[in-house]
C-alpha cells in the first residue's frame, strides 16, 4: 500500500469545528435559479441522525462557491441552497446528467460516505454512466423528489431502501 493518511471518525463533537454560519449556501441567496435541497438522515433502525454533517460539491457553479455544508438538526434534517448543475462530459466523452456529490460525516462512520444527488425528470438520467452502473432497483435512492420550493433527498445509511454509496 502507498503511505496515505487514514480516515477517522468525525465523532460526536464535529459542531465545535465544522459548521459555518452560511454553510448551507452553495450559491448566494437570491441567485437566479436557486433551489433548496432538504432531506433527513436515518440509521438502520430508522432513527434520525441528529449529529451528522452533510457536504455537497458540484463543479460548474463557479464563480460561486459550489460547496455546501450543513449539520443535521434534531430531526436528522439538512438544507442546502444551490443551483442545478449543468450536464458535463465525463473523461470518456459520455454525458453525465446533472448531479451533486455528497459527503456524509457522522459519529459511527470511520470514513465519510459518498453519494450523489440526481434530479427527477432529466432526460440525461437514462444514459448517465454512473446511474446505469447501479442496480435499477436501487437507482431511485439517488434521484431527488420534487417538492414545493425545491427537492427532497433523504439519506438512509442502512436498511430498507439503503442509499447507494460510492467508493471514490
Amino acid at each position, binding site marked *: *500500500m*502507498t*503511505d*496515505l*493518511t*487514514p*480516515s*477517522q*471518525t*468525525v*465523532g*460526536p*463533537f*464535529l*459542531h*465545535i*469545528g*465544522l459548521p459555518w454560519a452560511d454553510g448551507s449556501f452553495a450559491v448566494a441567496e437570491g441567485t437566479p435559479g436557486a433551489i433548496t435541497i432538504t432531506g433527513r438522515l436515518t*440509521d*438502520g*433502525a430508522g432513527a434520525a*441522525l441528529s449529529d451528522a454533517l452533510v*457536504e455537497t*460539491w458540484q*463543479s*460548474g457553479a463557479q464563480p460561486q*462557491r*459550489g*460547496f455546501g455544508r450543513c449539520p443535521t438538526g434534531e430531526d436528522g434534517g439538512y438544507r442546502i441552497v444551490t443551483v442545478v448543475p449543468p450536464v458535463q*462530459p*465525463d*473523461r470518456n*466523452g*459520455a454525458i*453525465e446528467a446533472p448531479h451533486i*456529490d455528497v*459527503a456524509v*460525516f*457522522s*459519529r*459511527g*462512520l*470511520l*470514513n*465519510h*460516505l*459518498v453519494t*450523489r444527488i440526481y434530479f427527477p425528470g432529466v432526460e440525461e438520467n437514462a444514459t448517465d*454512466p454512473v446511474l446505469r*452502473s*447501479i442496480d435499477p432497483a*436501487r437507482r431511485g435512492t439517488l434521484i431527488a423528489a420534487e417538492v414545493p420550493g425545491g427537492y427532497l433527498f433523504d439519506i438512509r*445509511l*442502512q*436498511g430498507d431502501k*439503503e442509499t447507494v*454509496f*460510492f*467508493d*471514490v
Partner: protein
Amino acid sequence: MDLPLFERADNVHPPVVFPDYRSNVLRAPRQPLVVLPQNLTEVTAPVFGQDTIGPTDGDLTRQFPDEPLGQRIIVHGRVLESNGRPVPNTLVEIWQANASGRYRHVVDNWPAPLDPNFSGAGRALTDAQGHYSFTTIQPGAYPWGNHDNAWRPAHIHFSVFGRAFTQRLVTQMYFPGDPLLPLDPIFNSIPDIRGRELLISRFDLSHTQPNWALAFEFDILLRGERSTPFESGADHDD
C-alpha cells in the same frame, strides 16, 4: 476530457463495517460500495481564500481575553500528496477537547471542567509549500461509553479538503507514547500498522519554542495523481 486521475486508497482507511466501534453498528451501510469513476466533480474541490480565516483562527490560545489552562503546544506539518507534491492554499480545520479532556459541546457532560478561555476550534490555509501551523493546548484523554472503562487517547480532529473531492479527508492526530492507543478501537480500526503510525504526531524539538511551547509535527498525506493516464476501468465499464 483531460482530467487528472488520483490513485486509489485501497487498504488505507478503516473498513466500512467495524462493530468494535459500537456507534458503527446501525450506521454503516450494508450494501457494497459502488465504484465511482473520477470525473469532473470528483477531481475538483472548493477553493477557499484567506478571507475564510479569522485573525485568531490559527492560535487557539488567543481567542479569549485570558489564556486557556494546559500545556501550550504548536502543531504543524505539511499537507502533501503521496508523490511528495505539496497541497497549497487548502483549508485545514481542527477541533479538540481542552486540557481536561472536555469538549465545549452540549452533549459532552462528563465531569471534567470546561475552560472559559478555550473554544477548541481552529482553522488555517496551507502556504505555498503545503505547510500549516496551529498554536493550541495539549488535549486531555476522556472516557466514552463504547465498552467497559473505555478512554479515548488524546487527539485533535483534522479536516482537510485537498484539491479534489477524492482527497477530502477527516481524521484524528494522536500523540507519541500514548498508552491508550493500543486499547482504542477507533485507532485500531485502521487495517495497516503503518497507517496507524501515520496518525501519531512526532515530537519536534526543532520547532519547540524555548520558554514557550512544545512542538509536534503532523504531515497529512493525500492521494496523489496516478502517473499513468490509463485507468483500468474494468470494474466500472459501461
